[in-house]
């Protein structure tokens, strides 16, 4: 298993954001983490990215407990825009390239060209959609073993979402990168997901292979999502 999560719990003042979450992800798989707002998806991603500490439980990436060592192999795209607004696009990418081994600046340029992002504009002036695209550039510019994408399609125009995500996964993915993605837009990524976890109120309520779940439930992942959301 590339990622192994064992009984993770996270308590915030007055609420358990995660309440006993366990799962494993094999190398090269694409896992979808689906659930409504407040299900605990973002907290789970932050713990896997090692920027939030679990209250209980353990999580490992490539056999190592999550920490600054595992950040070397993990690309984390948070739901928010994490970039410095006063930096220009290329400055930000050059800054990040210093930290991550194997960063391919030519690939960054290709991605920016594909996603129509200018390299000399200040990030603060980019639209929400362009900032979301810039996060994608970061994720696919270096050979991260694990890519954590928390709502990666937020802000991107609906007609472009499907084309972008399919092209990225088809052409720009580094070999067998393992991808864990959370999204509300299940229909946009349904074809790409190999395994799925459905979360509700900090717990996993359903998990398994996407094909198997579709077969068992007799409906699409969107249908299952709507059924669980109630």
């Amino acid at each position, binding site marked *: 298993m590339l990622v192994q999560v064992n009984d993770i719990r996270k308590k915030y003042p007055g609420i358990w954001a995660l309440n006993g979450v366990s799962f494993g992800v094999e190398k090269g798989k694409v896992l979808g983490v689906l659930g409504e707002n407040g299900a605990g998806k973002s907290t789970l991603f*932050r713990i896997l990215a090692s920027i939030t*500490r679990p209250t209980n439980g353990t999580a490992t990436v490539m056999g190592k407990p999550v920490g600054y*060592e595992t950040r070397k192999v993990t690309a984390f795209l948070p739901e*928010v825009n*994490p970039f410095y*607004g006063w930096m220009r696009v290329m400055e930000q990418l050059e800054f*990040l390239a210093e*930290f991550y081994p194997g960063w391919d600046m030519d690939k960054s340029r290709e991605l920016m060209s594909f996603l129509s992002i200018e390299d000399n504009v200040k990030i603060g002036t980019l639209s929400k959609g362009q900032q979301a695209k810039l996060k994608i550039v970061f994720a696919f510019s270096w050979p991260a073993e694990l890519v954590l994408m928390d709502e990666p399609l937020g802000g991107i125009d609906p007609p472009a979402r499907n084309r972008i995500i399919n092209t990225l996964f088809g052409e720009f993915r580094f070999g067998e990168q393992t991808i864990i993605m959370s999204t509300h837009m299940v229909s946009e990524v349904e074809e790409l997901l190999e395994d799925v976890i459905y979360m509700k109120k900090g717990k996993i309520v359903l998990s398994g292979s996407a094909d198997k779940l579709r077969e068992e439930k007799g409906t699409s992942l969107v249908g299952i999502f709507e059924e669980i959301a109630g």
Partner: protein
Amino acid sequence: MKKLYKFFLVLLAIQAGYIIYLIDTQFFHIIFTESTIYGRNSLVFGITRLIRYTSLFIFPFLFLYSWFSEETARTNYQLYSLPRRNSVHVKSKMAAVLTLGVIWLIGWMIFASFEGVIRSTYFPYRYSSGPIPLMQHLYNIYNRYFQNVGNLFVLMGIASIVTGCVQALKRYRLVAGTVVFIALNAVYIFVITPFLIRTYEAVIIYAIRDFAQSHFLLSIYLISAMHDAVLLLSGIACIYLGFYLFERFSEV
């Protein structure tokens, strides 16, 4: 977060004001008293000293600002996900601010090199210098160049611990930060500062008024040097405690 940041800025301003009130009102009282004897030279010296000390507070302000602005802009997501220990980020920011502090110190050194000449030219003493000009000059250099280094480290230490506490907590951040801020300031103001004031009083009164008592001056210099060493070490200890809090508890 913006409110929290603004609140700590207000605390910082109060801290600056109170310490300046404690040190410089007494200092100015002496200065004004001495001014009747020595003219405006002493007054100008007092004003430059006040500016020098006040400008110290820029540095903890910059440190606090750099952290709170990361949280406000959500760039802490990027910072914490970089493949480095959490304390590396806070150490980098501290190093950047202290580097500015060194530049500030060098600026004052350059200014202080000319200050005495400027004051003597435009606001000459009514009396000539005393029998121990070398001792006096050495003390002035020491006082102006190095004494504020200790104060700078203490202020940065307080800022480091307060920021570390706020980063480490998810609840009662404002209360905890304020309590720690006030407690550390109480130690600084009520334990360390009175000692500082007494030293200054002694130095100013005896060094300016009675140059003949050189043996007494020497003991004052030694006490003053010890005091500055305590300030510096306390500041470094506080800074490292802040680093520990970051490494152990900080998260997004």
